[in-house]
């Protein structure tokens, strides 16, 4: 499905070999870090993690379209691949999974990535507000908000789509339909079977794409950004993918899907698909792939070392970061806490 008018300008330009190789390197880095994070959890380095295994093409492809000098991205808790693609400090990002600070330790304004969001569909409306701010300021930034097939059931998604369409806000709604909302499959989640199909009701162009094809994802996202940036209003992209792993490190998919169902539903691995394509097109060779994997491993080691070295935040921050202007009651509680906490 594709109801987005064909873009003018450079949005549909073919990717250079260097860009294609960069996409692959990013996907390998994300895949390796994602797998490692599960291992970290098993080793007790972090208490929990929400893997994005199988969604590397959707996340790297869409994140690659972001212009971090002017755009702003609103993630959920499963957009590690987007964060990595946007160049966010990954120790600061992964700190949320170490239970250091809910939103992560990265600076959202500098990295152009809103704090990690644990409320399903919580930040979809924020993207609309930020984007409308661009309109009011006569700037050309675009907001991209991520959500899933499960979140599409939330009323806030309807409100966000309607507000954005009414106000012609420059928003790209990027839906990763990964087939599962914890244990509930899309067919029992999304009536009609497609989130993208709903966009028509808002008079909003939409694309339903192969979310496991990184080049297709990047192309669609670039077109959507160009459309929104030109003042034509919001676009919805539904990237069809598959959550190959558990919902989180606390989840047990064996209780709701068999391995056979998992294999059939997942289809071909997006990373392997892209590797075969680069090989077939003569863009990259085995030496390059080996180099990319080695770089991913070195990067993961560096991030793991950083995470392990990360100290707990001082308890005073509990009190100091609630308000910009604190209150006497908070100051009194902080003073009590200091007095009554021997370890401080």
């Amino acid at each position, binding site marked *: 499905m594709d109801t987005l008018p064909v873009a003018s300008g450079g949005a549909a330009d073919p990717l250079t070999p260097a860009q294609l190789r960069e996409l692959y390197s990013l996907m390998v880095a994300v895949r390796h870090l994602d797998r490692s994070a599960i291992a970290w959890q098993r080793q007790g380095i972090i208490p929990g993690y929400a893997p994005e295994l199988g969604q590397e093409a959707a996340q790297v492809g869409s994140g690659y379209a972001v212009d971090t000098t002017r755009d702003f991205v609103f993630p959920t808790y499963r957009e590690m691949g987007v964060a990595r693609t946007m160049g966010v400090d990954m120790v600061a990002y992964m700190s949320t999974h170490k239970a250091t600070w809910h939103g992560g330790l990265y600076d959202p304004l500098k990295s152009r990535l809103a704090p990690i969001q644990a409320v399903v569909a919580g*930040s*979809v409306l*924020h993207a*609309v*507000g930020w984007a409308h701010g661009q309109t009011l300021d006569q700037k050309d930034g675009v907001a991209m908000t991520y959500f899933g097939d499960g979140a599409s059931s939330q009323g*806030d998604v309807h409100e966000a789509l309607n507000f954005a369409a*009414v106000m012609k806000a420059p928003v790209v709604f990027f839906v990763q339909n990964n087939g599962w909302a914890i244990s509930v499959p899309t067919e029992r989640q999304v009536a009609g079977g497609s989130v993208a199909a709903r966009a028509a009701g808002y008079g909003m162009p939409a694309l339903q794409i192969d979310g496991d094809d990184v080049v297709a994802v990047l192309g669609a996202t670039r077109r959507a950004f160009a459309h929104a940036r030109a003042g034509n209003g919001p676009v919805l992209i539904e990237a069809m993918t598959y959550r190959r792993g558990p919902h989180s490190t606390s989840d047990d998919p064996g209780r709701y899907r068999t391995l056979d169902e998992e294999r059939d539903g997942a289809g071909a691995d997006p990373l392997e698909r892209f590797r075969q394509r680069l090989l077939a097109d003569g863009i990259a060779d085995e030496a390059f792939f080996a180099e990319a994997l080695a770089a991913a491993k070195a990067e993961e080691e560096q991030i793991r070392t950083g995470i392990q070295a990360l100290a707990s935040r001082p308890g005073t*921050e509990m009190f100091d970061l609630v*308000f910009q202007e604190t*209150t006497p009651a908070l100051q009194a509680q902080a003073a009590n806490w200091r007095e009554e906490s021997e370890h401080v």
Partner: protein
Amino acid sequence: MSNSILESVDAAGDSTPGRTGTSAGTPASTIVMSMQQALNRALDEVLAENPKAVIFGEDCGQLGGVFRITDGLQAKHGAQRVFDTPLAESGILGMSVGLAMAGFHPIPEVQFDGFAYPAINQIVCQIARMNYRSRGTLPMPITLRVPSFGGIRAPEHHGESLEALFAHVPGLKVVSPSNPHEAYHLLKYAATRPDPVIFMEPKSRYWQKGEVNLAHGEAGAGSPTGAKVMREGRHLTLVAWGAMVARCLQVAELAAEDGIDIEVLDLRWLKPIDAEALAASVRKTRRAVVVHEAPLTSGLGAEVAQLITQSCFDTLRAPVERVTGFDVPYPSGDLEDEYIPNIDRILFGIQRVLEYKRG
């Protein structure tokens, strides 16, 4: 009031009779206007002074809001600064978060108190927490105006008192003006703060006129923070906010006829509560009754009573009394006078405190 109450009042302090806070000489900067006009004027000035301030909500634009609080503001400041949104409160508040992240000062309106409920997720989980979640990098300077409380014979969900709910949420501040002067100054102050403020407007007082001293600072308005003594007295402190302040002032006048000298403390800020003002007043009067429209159980009156007990336990002559709404859904118009604390019920509360005998 019966004589027995009078007899139970201790002879305390000097014999200065109670008086209202209005001074005899009216300053040149004082004009008479309704609370609706005072709020409208405050918003007009905020828009003029802060180019990043934006006002939006249901019917806020051309119509000027169902209570006309934003009347004329779109015509004066433009449809970019004052605009209508689709009819969805979560959308209005969620959008406010994004605008605040983009450097704006959103002043959204929820049309009636009861319609804050559909937006609770965005208010509690997002607005109240974003500064914390982002470690102070994404402040939420959002001033949420909520026409609040009862008293206008409105349909269901149009007469709610949500202050305890909001005050319980870490990251929110809550304020309610009691008259046009307070409305003007508290809104101007709230709408320039870097933190989220729930601004609860007592809708039954919108059309009451009063003197507004437009001058800022000590010469005029005084401090916009903390509580405010609206009437000084020696025998008992009535603690109230919003529309209940005017009612308590009426009660104080009636009690004065019986020689009971009542102090009326307008709490104004429901979070943070001015614990020092409560202590100062009740240390003097040694008795307190807190009055609110919200239901009794877990209402803000309990918080006020505890703060008073904490600071004044040794001087209190009686337990702090609460005169409040009941633990029932806000009733239909025919019954709302039975629900909202009226003069008689407040007087009975005063009587219980004055007649209290230690066992």
